[in-house]
């Protein structure tokens, strides 16, 4: 339990709650045949969230920080995989499912542990081609195909 995290998250949720309340004012106040418009529910929830956030921030001043069990976080590994995942999502529709999945898995495997490149290539290849074949060819589902400038599609 981290005091700082709790405090900032509390403030963040306070802002989110406030945003919902403010934005609810822009919604219509009534629906046909009813005084209860679409604004009531989000507005009251926003107010509830604000109150709870204030309570959380208040609580952070009350308790002492629990002793941290120092686990060293591997931010480098996480960063690489996170960026790879974002690129995977961004390029999926342009490069097609098989290519992006293969590259993402290869980067993922090698980031988790260097070495044995061929094993990684084989597993990544089997997964990307296997899922594509099973889903698109056998089950008639739809996934982004190979880009059109490649001769096979």
């Amino acid at each position, binding site marked *: *339990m*981290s005091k700082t*995290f*709790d405090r900032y*998250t509390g403030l963040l*949720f306070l802002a*989110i*709650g406030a945003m*919902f309340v403010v*934005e609810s004012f822009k*919604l*219509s106040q009534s*629906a*046909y*045949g*009813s*005084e*209860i*418009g*679409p604004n*009531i*529910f*989000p507005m009251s*929830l*926003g107010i*509830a*969230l604000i109150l*709870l956030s204030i*309570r*959380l921030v208040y*609580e952070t001043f009350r308790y002492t920080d629990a002793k941290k069990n120092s686990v060293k*976080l*591997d*931010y480098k*590994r*996480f960063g690489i*995989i*996170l960026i790879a*995942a*974002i690129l*995977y*999502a961004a390029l*999926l*529709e342009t490069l097609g499912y098989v290519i992006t*999945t293969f590259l*993402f*898995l290869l980067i*993922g*495997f090698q980031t*988790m542990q260097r070495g044995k490149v061929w094993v990684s290539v084989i*597993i990544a290849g089997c*997964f*990307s081609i296997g*899922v594509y074949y099973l*889903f698109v060819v056998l*089950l*008639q*589902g*739809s*996934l982004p195909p190979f880009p059109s400038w490649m001769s096979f599609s």
Partner: protein
Amino acid sequence: MGTLEYLMQGFATALQWHNLLFAFFGVLIGTAVGVLPGIGPMSGIALLMPITASITSGLPAEAAATSSIILLAGVYYGAMYGGSTTSILLNTPGESSSVVTTLDGHQMAKNGRAGVALAICAIGSFAAGLVALTGLILLANPLAGIALKFGPAEYTSLMLLGLLAVSGLGGKSITKALMMTVFGLLLATIGIDAVSGVTRFTYDMPVLYSGLEFLTIAVGLFAVGEVFKAILERESNDGEIAKINRILPTKQDLKDSSLPIARGSVLGFFIGVLPGAGATLASFFSYIMEKKLSKNPKKFGNGAIEGVAAPESANNAAAGGAIIPLLTLGIPGSGSTAILMSAFIMFNITPGPLLFEEHPDVAWGLIASMFVGNAILLILNLPMVKVFAKVVETPAKYLIPLIIGFSFFGVYAVQFSVFDLGLLIACGVAGYFLSKNDFPIAPLVLGLVLGPMIENNLRRALTISNGDVMIFIQKPLSLTFIIIGILWIITPLFLKLRGKKLILNEEG
């Protein structure tokens, strides 16, 4: 038609060969999911939803729904069982509901009785499945009958009760749990309002018109969040895996464990029916109960077979019991049942009192398939214990990127949108940081599912009363629900003030 006839019809549905196959694969995948670190029952079900949807697309609508839900339910209780395998062999519980099993289960493994412990788990799970099934058959129709008399006010209060119960037991801090619930409800308001047709919080972005997709958020928060945790904290299963020698329990073992299994099953079932109190709580309570009832409590913690049998039956019975409020009232009481419910909705079937009238095939087929599934689980697990023990050894370096790959596939195959993939990644990051800091995720997911239902009923109730909030207090049933809900939140606070230690129901 009477209940028995319906049940027979349900069995006819469940025993169709393709449904048997679905139950078999569901249970098999579920057990693997439970055994593998990093994916729990919730992410397992969420990940399989798109795949089952496309496999069953050739069948007529109702049959497709039945088969898919049979498979997903199989994953649900298969995972419950699989979680205990790692507890016993590795001393690392796969799910929070099998934490208690480590106490005696791993001790048994150290004494060279790992196989027996696993077998007792399977037998206990089977017995618990039977108890849950009987309970379902007895309670389903009467409960659905009562629920039919509910008006919008009663429904709103009942759902509020469910949310409060999950928040009250959901984590270390009730404030945080309530915040997550409210946030989930708020997220559910994004999109086109079903009552008035007004768009809310969409800012003219077409992707937001249909609201944030539940599946994406659930997979992101649970599956991707868990994976990020494993990457950041370098978790790995390098503990030593106990050897499995003898599998079949002796007569003495069976004699020792039969009563604990019976007690655990009944207790677990009733705890499972309560909203918010799920499998984790059930396993803790039954362990404590067995320890109290035992003639020599010193055995516990040193490899007592009762200490494995009771909690394992309890958590499986609870998993079965948790399906009752979902089927009869249409209200999920936990994160996993919330995801099951979204599977129903995906097939255009709304669980609730009308389910038994409108789609008796689906409801009774599912109930009967739970029995069939449990039998398959028993048959499958005894000979395959060693295979599953091998699954535990899957190296994390391959598993983790593959889970991300599966999540991407699962989300994209249903949504066809890059926006959802972005949301998935964002939810993964948020899920990791939130759960690391004791912000429970299950209440958020539950809020997201129940949000539209609560809002519709709330507005209907308020429209009937012309905006008078007193309608929730004037109706006796509604008032009762509200009082119970408030008690659920206040009692733990009160106990905490008096310095009592609480058992938490954290679902992973």
